């Protein structure tokens, strides 16, 4: 039996892999002293699927269907990253209209991912009505995906050489109108997320990741940007971000609130880009025939997924099957930062801090 003299001694509390806050399995050994976390040791690998290995037995054009199924949230981005990598390997240039459509869907994907995250975060600190309002707005984006690609979660619209579906003028008008409505509703949500006292109480000053730590721990995505690092792969020349005047959103304080604020501001930015695309989308084809020799050589591609930088490495051997295909997802890179954020936090803040890196174990266990 523990007595007064035992207070202050360290205890290891297992957190996960099954936990109400975690939709997917990740485990943490939390070393606790009283109510403070001293150290956190992460464990993943409960559901590793080995999808990369399938590239050796699936033909490279059909592998996109597997890649999209790495994750139901980042589905479009995974497909886009993979086909862009194969296009880089084969020297394929996609038509301008296809590039704009890819940019539009990629930003729509970011909107629904960030809204999903905002809802889950509200849920994690017990603000259920905010959670439901956020997901209600998110539903409109899911419907727009359904309207334009035929799928809410898995879109199967990216292909090597372009996109499988075009978006007509009437549909573009509807998207623009939906975006205007979503922007109004998002403004209301923004007020609550950024100004409400109960939200601030749970997020401000919690789980701080300094800029130096973020650099040292190689953080990516909104996690890095909230700590003041101006790093966003949308500046790497892919898709049409250059034409849309994109500039990254950054924060300063590196706490849970800053990570929330960066994502909220990115929502508005993505809505602006989608609306702009509906008005500047050029006429023309949406795909080119892919001819020529089968893929050889290697190509390293990366793009900015909603959660951060993702890698797609492809290596061809002159056959229809790739010799190696590799995906490195943002959560892989943000786990070390999460460990640092947890050091010194209250046990009660652990779920919120874990959520603020927007962990996707489905991606990580590709």
């Amino acid at each position, binding site marked *: 039996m523990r007595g007064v003299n035992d207070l202050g001694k360290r205890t290891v509390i297992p957190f996960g892999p099954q936990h109400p806050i975690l939709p997917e399995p990740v485990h943490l050994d939390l070393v606790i002293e009283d109510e403070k976390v001293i150290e956190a040791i992460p*464990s*993943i*690998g*409960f559901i*590793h699927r*080995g999808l990369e*290995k399938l590239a050796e037995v699936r033909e490279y054009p059909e592998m996109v269907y597997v890649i999209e199924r790495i994750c139901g949230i980042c589905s479009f981005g995974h497909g886009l990253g993979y086909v*862009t990598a194969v296009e*880089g390997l084969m020297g394929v240039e996609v038509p301008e209209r296809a590039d704009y459509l890819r940019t539009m869907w990629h930003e729509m994907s970011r909107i629904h991912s960030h809204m999903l995250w905002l809802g889950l975060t509200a849920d994690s600190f017990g603000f259920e009505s905010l959670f439901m309002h956020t997901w209600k707005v998110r539903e409109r984006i899911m419907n727009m995906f359904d309207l334009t690609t035929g799928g809410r979660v898995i879109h199967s619209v990216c292909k090597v050489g372009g996109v499988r579906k075009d978006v007509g003028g009437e549909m573009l008008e509807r998207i623009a109108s939906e975006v205007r409505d979503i922007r109004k509703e998002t403004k209301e949500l923004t007020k609550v997320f950024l100004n409400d006292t109960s939200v601030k109480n749970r997020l401000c000053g919690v789980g701080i990741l300094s800029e130096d730590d973020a*650099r*040292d*721990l*190689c953080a990516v995505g909104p996690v890095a940007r909230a700590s003041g690092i*101006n*790093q966003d*792969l949308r*500046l*790497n*020349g*892919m898709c049409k971000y*250059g034409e849309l005047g994109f500039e990254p959103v950054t924060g300063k304080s590196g706490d849970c609130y800053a990570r929330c604020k960066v994502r909220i501001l990115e929502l508005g930015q993505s809505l602006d880009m989608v609306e702009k695309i509906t008005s500047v989308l050029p006429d023309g084809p949406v795909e080119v025939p892919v001819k020529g020799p089968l893929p050889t050589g*290697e*190509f*390293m*591609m*990366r793009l900015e997924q909603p959660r951060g*930088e993702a*890698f797609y*490495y492809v*290596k061809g051997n002159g056959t229809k099957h790739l*010799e*190696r295909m*590799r995906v*490195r997802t943002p959560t*892989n*890179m943000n*786990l*070390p930062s999460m460990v640092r954020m947890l050091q010194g936090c209250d046990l009660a803040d652990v779920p919120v801090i874990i959520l603020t890196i927007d962990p996707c174990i489905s991606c990580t266990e590709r």
Partner: protein
Amino acid sequence: MRCNYRVQNFEEIETGDLIGRVREFKTEGYRMCQICASNVEGGTEVLYSFDKDLELFNIRVTVRPGEKLESITGAYWPAFIYENETHDLFGIEFTDSRLDYGGKFFRLSKPTPWLSKDEGGE
């Protein structure tokens, strides 16, 4: 800060030069991005990626059967994720790791499932 994602930088080095080269990247302010292993003839190729201002640089070493690779976790601690993954899937041993899961990073139905048959994999 804009760049061209189509520019590809790959450099091949000897395993003995790995730590020195990685420390150079660290000193120059590069961010470690990922480590990727692949089966190649006569061993396993390990590709390390580093980024600075969105310019990506990849260095490649080839590990021969039975050869060990020095861990880069001394320079880049987050590399433990990839080194443990590479160990569990390809069977490459990393020495002096700052966080070694001892083969328990992934729960796998059989050890080193991605090691090529030529190197002793199933």
